């Protein structure tokens, strides 16, 4: 499996790992393809993601995608975060080998589910 240097960097030094005790949104999602899981914690203030943590039980691509995705949504509005696609995450990582593309979906799924769970808690329609 040949990964880019960026993937290897985010795999070996993942950013935003951990839990947020006072998270405003928390979800745990699993991949239907491989069973790998990602948990995501968001701290949200005035419609903006002010802090984020994740835990991933998954392959290197999944870990790097989670790390990169959390970096990309930190400080962003919920709308902006919602718009993030797994392809953008993969691109930011310098690309992923074809059989590993599905791993980046895990992060996208987690972000969207977390945002919707937050909206529901706020009494809003899910997107």
């Amino acid at each position, binding site marked *: 499996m040949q990964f880019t240097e960026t993937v290897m960097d985010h*795999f070996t030094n993942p950013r935003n790992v951990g839990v947020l005790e006072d998270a405003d949104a928390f979800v745990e999602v699993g991949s239907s393809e491989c069973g790998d899981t990602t948990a995501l914690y968001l701290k949200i203030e005035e419609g903006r993601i002010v802090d984020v943590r994740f835990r991933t*039980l998954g392959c290197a691509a999944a870990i790097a995608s989670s790390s990169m995705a959390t970096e990309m949504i930190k400080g962003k509005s919920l709308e902006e975060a919602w718009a993030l696609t797994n392809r953008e995450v993969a691109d930011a990582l310098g690309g992923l080998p074809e059989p590993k593309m599905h791993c980046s979906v895990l992060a996208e799924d987690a972000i969207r589910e977390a945002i919707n769970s937050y909206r529901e808690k706020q009494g809003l329609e899910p997107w």
Partner: protein
Amino acid sequence: MSEKIYYFDHAATTPTHPEVVAAMLPYFTEHFGNPSSLYGLADESREAVTHARGQVADALGASPGEIFFTAGGTESDNWALKGVALANREKGDHIITTAIEHHAILHTCEFLERQGFSVTYLPVDRYGMVDPAAVEEAITDRTILVSVMTANNEVGTIQPIAEIGAVAHKHGVLFHTDAVQAVGNVPIDVDAMQIDLLSLSGHKFYGPKGTGALYIRDGVAIETFVHGGGQEKGRRAGTENLPGLVGLGAAIKRACDDIHGHTARVAQLRDRFLDEILESVPEVTLNGHPTERLPGNINISFAGIDGEALLTLLGMQGVCASTGSACSSGEETPSHVLTAMGVPPSLARASLRLSLGDLTTEADVDFLLDTLPDAVARLRRLSRGHA
């Protein structure tokens, strides 16, 4: 990326031993004659084929006339199953195998099912062991073949082959065994083990890739798989892979001549590693049989991690190994072998297979004992949320 390689994947493939390469070399450029030809150059080739066939026969306790060269373990498996099925269709249409066979057997069986054969896939116990009594129960008057691997490639469990052979023969059923992982690691005697057909593959015991053989007991009814010229007594056509079979012969001789000596060394390395890793890492479980296993096989699961991530981390330090959850290697996730043994998916995907071999040194094992606990701890921090 590390420059030095720590190779713990001998079950996937081995390098060709330098002595084996040396034995092969003259047959590429110098003694290159087609063994079917009539001139002196071809005499040398024919002698080389005869010599190699004798070496393979010796390693199995067979006679040379029962050894047929193929292009690998997969072809041998295909030939054994499809050939026996086709030649014995009048007698019956039922084949018995196990749930933990290599895909070369399983996918061939699925093909035969599409051709109208019926196949029983026997279960295994938690150690990956097949019960000879279950084989006997599965035999019907339509059964023409029992195929059970000698040793499993993932967990290393060694099957009670002689007992299974005896059961098959008691009911007049042919017995095939995929010994691709066993040859060179487990002593084989086709008579004592009551084997009618046996598959082997050169690159698993320091022979060249793309070489193999099928042992066919004299008198066994089997259709030709590769039709064409008169090679291999007309039963497996195609110009002989001369350097390849010279290498196969040299390699099997090397691997089997002092089989107890070098497997004991490998088993001792394995045991030391296992003792220490079970001690130093929490939440580790051993997959496979505690004693009836290949000398070089280690299969362990680390709760809370993904095997592929572990491989990536180890790979950065030059460690080559494999896992039961390599979704990107084209195999389904998780391993059908671990699943058949009742290993839960979370532990199956967390499995690491380390296969040691003749090249493994004490220093390699030390390095791995140093590296592995850290790697596991690091991935667990990631999955359990401590940064």
